[in-house]
């Protein structure tokens, strides 16, 4: 789906992403993990085509992102940025309807089909009852659901999420992750919590703007790599009730 070829990114003389290459496969959930400032958000922006790579290129289904019009990218790929806020007293339904933007034009005005998509995603994310609420009155978890709904209203084939569980309580963290897991689409998600990240199909681990490792969680979440990247010791706890080992840090 996405092919990252020798991509690097520099801003004002500072390297934010060192040259790296990898593929995002169709239907997989790829987790991006790494300490704060390791380049996860910069990499996501490159994958979303929002920033141009300094070197190399990002291919979206075989085509260079830089050659594609923004609208065409937005019909295939949705990006939920971290803590996107607004001062506008926008209603939830209006915020979700923004997701239809790439499908609308003067010749293709708002139609029943667009309304249908919006109703569907609001139902899918259980926010249909919040339709008339004003954005500022929502809880953090509700706001994150609205962001997800807006992204899904784009009907993307690929969904990029930048720390969607940040600043949420544990109940909302799990609820959002379960919702994301249940989406039958290709996902790249930056995550903070390594145990939560272990639920992804594959993980890309970043440190100091370098890609350190990429592979299945049990291949890359090893005590050695975690020590090298995060500087903490790890113990794997195996529990018969869990399908995967639990990481304990000390």
């Amino acid at each position: 789906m996405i092919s990252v070829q020798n991509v690097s990114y520099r801003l004002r003389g500072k390297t934010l992403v060192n040259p790296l290459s990898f593929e995002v496969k169709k239907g997989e959930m790829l987790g991006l993990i790494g300490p704060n400032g390791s380049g996860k958000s910069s990499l996501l922006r490159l994958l979303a085509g929002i920033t141009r790579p300094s070197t190399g290129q990002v291919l979206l289904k075989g085509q260079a992102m830089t050659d594609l019009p923004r609208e065409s990218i937005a019909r295939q790929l949705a990006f939920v940025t971290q803590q996107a806020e607004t001062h506008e007293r926008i209603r939830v339904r209006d915020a979700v309807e923004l997701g239809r933007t790439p499908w609308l034009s003067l010749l293709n005005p708002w139609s029943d089909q667009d309304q249908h998509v919006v109703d569907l995603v609001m139902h899918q994310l259980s926010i249909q009852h919040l339709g008339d609420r004003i954005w500022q009155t929502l809880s953090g978890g509700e706001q994150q659901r609205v962001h997800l709904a807006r992204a899904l209203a784009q009907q993307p084939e690929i969904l990029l999420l930048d720390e969607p569980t940040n600043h949420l309580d544990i109940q909302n963290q799990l609820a959002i992750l379960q919702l994301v897991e249940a989406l039958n689409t290709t996902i790249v998600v930056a995550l903070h919590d390594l145990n939560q990240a272990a639920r992804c199909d594959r993980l890309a681990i970043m440190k100091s703007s370098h890609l350190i490792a990429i592979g299945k969680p049990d291949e890359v979440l090893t005590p050695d790599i975690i020590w090298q990247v995060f500087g903490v010791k790890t113990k794997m706890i195996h529990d018969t009730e869990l399908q995967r080992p639990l990481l304990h840090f000390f």
Partner: protein
Amino acid sequence: MTTLILNKSTSLFIRSIKGFLVSASILLPTIILAVMIGESAISLETVYKTFSNKLLGTTYLVDLIDAGILWEYRLSRAVIACCCGAALAVSGVILQSLLRNVLVDPYILGISAGASAGAVAVAIVGIGAGILSMSAGAFLGALLSFGLVLALSRVTGQIILAGIAGAQLFHALSALMITKSANAEAARGIMFWLLGNLSGVRWDDAWLAIPVAVIGMTVALYYARALDAFTFGAESAASLGIPVARVRLILILVTASMTAVMVSMVGSIGFVGLVIPHAARFLVGVRHSILLPVSALMGAVFLVMSDILSRIVVSGQVLPIGVVTALIGAPAFALILIRGARNR
């Protein structure tokens, strides 16, 4: 489901149409008031007869002096006030959306000050004389000041403070040019114009103001959906398929040219672009497809009313219209600030 869809879109449609009709139905009587009120009062009957003679070709007998004052002086003035009010309010909506800051408008960001300085440079100092018109000078001044303010805000992250610095700098430049180049009498006239003054405008000015306001409004409406997409920031707009850099550039040029043309005619008028968008949002919500036309109409009504007030507050004298908009706008702005603080 179909009923639901119908209900939803119908209610939004009705709300939008209502907002638009209310503003439009206030605008016409306001213009009629504006042509009636002045040093010499003109009756409604004379207004009707003059309009009819001019527009429908009837031959009612009217006092020629009254008809002349009404048509040549007051109506042209009211039309230009409409265009200015609409253009400044639309510029305010655009800037507030693009910069995601409800406290900005062309005046706060120094665009008006830049336009004034540009116009003064052409009219008084004679820079580019013969090639540059006052409006073109104002446009270049507006772009220059806005460019400086944006560059400064990029470094400091403080758009409003950058705007204040820009506005002060360009006001000072205007004052410097006027003091150096004009005699005392002319300087007084220019200072009066800088505060916002509709006294000198005629139909010739309207033929520039009308197309600029209409084209600016049309371009803004074309980008209404893009402006909606900026609700959650530029990155979010980009991820919704908006070519952010291009849209920003076009809308900034539109704002600068609308502001420049209006400032070159009537001087810099504050608070219209700041307060009107808030009032319009309060009435019709945040969707730009309806927010822009309603803001334009409200801005037009506000400026025509302010012009009427400017003629009657002090008998025998005309106040600069910028003084009236500030006297009304500043308390309204304070209310917005207080409301914003309470909502936080």
